[in-house]
């Protein structure tokens, strides 16, 4: 489940996914980062993606541009909430609540998809064979 932390006016949304995982899925399984719904499930309700910079998040999607500085390297978005009137927690819940719920839904399905992608990639790499290498004894000029 994603987390929202507040330090002063800075609000950091940290995902359970790493930025690397998001980039991997963008490349091999972009549909895993989308939440579909609406009529016949064809309307894109929410989307997770990677970007550059501090990132953005709202009810349409979340774009992660940074990661945490610990070993987990979880993807994170840093927002600044200044000129806030009223309780900051309530303002954050209003602005980010729906986005966080949808982000959590996507995060639940990601581990299985990632495992599948990694297994496929490992199988592909196992099938790659290096041929044509010549040992020193086999070099044409070795005996001369």
């Amino acid at each position: 489940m994603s987390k929202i932390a507040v330090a002063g006016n800075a609000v950091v949304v940290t995902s359970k996914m790493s930025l690397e995982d998001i980039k991997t899925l963008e490349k091999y399984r972009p549909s895993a980062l989308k939440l579909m719904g609406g009529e016949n499930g064809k309307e894109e309700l929410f989307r997770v993606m990677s970007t550059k910079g501090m990132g953005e998040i709202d009810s349409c999607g979340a774009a992660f541009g940074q990661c945490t500085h610990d070993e987990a390297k979880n993807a994170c978005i840093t927002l600044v909430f200044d000129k806030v009137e009223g309780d900051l927690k309530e303002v954050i819940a209003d602005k980010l609540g729906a986005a966080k719920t949808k982000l959590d839904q996507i995060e639940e399905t990601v581990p299985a998809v990632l495992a599948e992608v990694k297994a496929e990639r490992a199988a592909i790499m196992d099938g790659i064979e290096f041929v044509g290498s010549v040992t020193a004894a086999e070099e044409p000029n070795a005996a001369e």
Partner: protein
Amino acid sequence: MVRVITGTTLKRNDPVTVPSTTTLKSVLEDGRIDYANARIHLDGSPLSAGDLNKTFADFGITEGTCFLLNVVKADNAA
């Protein structure tokens, strides 16, 4: 995040969600919209040379939905 509807005057693509720091050109390229032989309009306003390399945030669009359409220039029949 910005929800962008690309297309032409005759056909609209499904909306795509992008960060507001995305350039207009990259959205057109991803949507395979030909911007070389037509005038591109952003929310009804025609764009000038060099505008395609600007981001949605540069145009003040940081959230909500916007239209990025390819409008073919054609002379009226005499």
